[in-house]
């Protein structure tokens, strides 16, 4: 593999006595889409937030384009953030702003684009995710869950990021809308030529949007491989997870890890 876009080595993170990540090693090549699967509370979100720099890992190294990002200062962090786009699980749209202002937020506030120009960009991006320009005038609270996800996706791609993160993109959507979002994600990622890291526990989504799948269990990546190999992983934990069986080596955690 050529030098990876994202490279994690020995990343650990604990909250108090709870050890959430126990040494994560992961490489993501440029323009590759990696999906991290795992049960609820296994630390998938924490992993994503560590890469984003929202949470500081206790130990380990996270390199973006070969540059170490752990312990980066304000200005360096801002530069790295410029490469990122993120689709949050609940959308995380700013409810005090209209839809187009949400999409144009990054271009206006961070890149200093003129509002009139940013508005055009926002409406174009809304078009990319299949939303009409009129939607731009509405507030996020006036939209359905699926529409909010689309707007959030438009916001995530508005600055044409090099790396896009997806946090449970299909959670809470009906199967048809979930598939629509999956297809939009695939299209947006390939249009931008972006690198993508997604976390999900929806196997249909994982198969559709990922090139490679990694399974997180008890704070470690226990299996990684191309999507095509997931059905012949030879790993009993993976087998249990992808078939959604209650019986198997993975026991339900009653308490959060």
């Amino acid at each position, binding site marked *: 593999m050529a030098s990876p876009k994202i490279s994690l080595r020995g990343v650990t993170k604990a909250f108090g006595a709870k050890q959430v990540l126990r040494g994560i090693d992961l490489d993501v090549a440029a323009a590759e889409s990696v999906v991290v699967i795992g049960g609820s509370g296994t630390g998938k979100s924490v992993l994503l937030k560590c890469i984003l720099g*929202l949470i500081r890992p206790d130990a380990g190294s996270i390199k973006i384009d070969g540059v170490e990002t752990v312990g980066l200062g*304000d200005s360096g962090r801002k530069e790295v953030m410029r490469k990122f786009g*993120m689709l949050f699980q609940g959308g995380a749209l700013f409810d005090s702003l209209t839809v187009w202002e949400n999409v144009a937020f990054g271009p206006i506030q961070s890149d200093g684009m003129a509002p009139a120009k940013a508005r055009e960009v926002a409406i174009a991006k809304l078009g990319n995710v299949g939303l009409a320009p009129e939607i731009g005038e509405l507030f996020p609270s006036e939209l359905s869950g699926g529409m909010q996800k689309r707007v959030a996706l438009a916001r995530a791609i508005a600055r044409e990021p090099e790396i896009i993160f997806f946090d449970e993109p299909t959670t809470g959507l009906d199967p048809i809308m979930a598939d629509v979002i999956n297809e939009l994600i695939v299209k947006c990622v390939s249009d931008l030529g972006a690198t993508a890291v997604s976390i999900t526990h929806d196997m249909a989504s994982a198969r559709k949007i990922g090139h490679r799948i990694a399974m997180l269990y008890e704070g470690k990546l226990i299996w990684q491989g191309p999507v095509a190999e997931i059905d012949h992983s030879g790993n009993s934990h993976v087998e249990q997870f992808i078939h959604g069986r209650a019986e198997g080596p993975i026991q339900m955690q009653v308490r959060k890890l």
Partner: protein
Amino acid sequence: MTIPLVTLLGRMVLGFLAAAGAVIMFAGEAIRQGLRPPYYRQQIVRQMLEVGYYSLPVVGLTAIFTGMVLALQSYTGFARFSAESAIPNVVVVSLTRELGPVLAALMVAGRVGAAMAAEIGTMRVTEQIDALSTLSTDPLKYLVVPRLIAGVLTLPVLVLVADIIGVLGGYLVGVYKLDFNDSAYLRNTVDFVQFQDVFSGLVKAAVFGFLITLMGCYHGYTSKGGAQGVGMATTNAVVSASMLILTSNYFITEAFFAR
């Protein structure tokens, strides 16, 4: 199991110190961010409207009735010593030095501090604050700094308005109920009040404005755990702001007037 009293006391002190330390670190970081560009002017203007303009009715109503009741109460007291002529003086000094800033600040703490904690707290639990970071916008700079600036700048203006409306309340009761001569009442007021009375009140207002917005932002920013967490943040913001207002009021008064 019984916990010895000393242990309990120790825990309380440690808890208090930890909270105070966290607030001071938060304030320091916010001020550090506030001194460096970019400045979100639109946000500052919006917050100034929210803190100042929309608080005018409630602060005005508080001030006018406080002025009125001050005049009435001091009359019932002073009439016994035939000292009714001191009423305008008592009204204006109590208002400008103490009641104007403190009551206005308490009303604003209930109105604005709570709203800030609820808004920022909701943004925290719905990941909107994380979303700001991913859009290369510093949440402290975008959310907290404009609110702090708005608090420090607008509270003194609000208090000045409250002072004037409060004096007007005293005047109304004095002239229409207690049969003061209207020009004599005003002359007594203006002659007696000193620059320092008003100025100390405005300094207090600026400090209170900082404390109210700081508490609203801090509790909102650090809230967790969904609706319950946001509710707790709101309560904590109002209670801690009120306590800080009353405590710091004493010390500012001492700094200005004790000799």
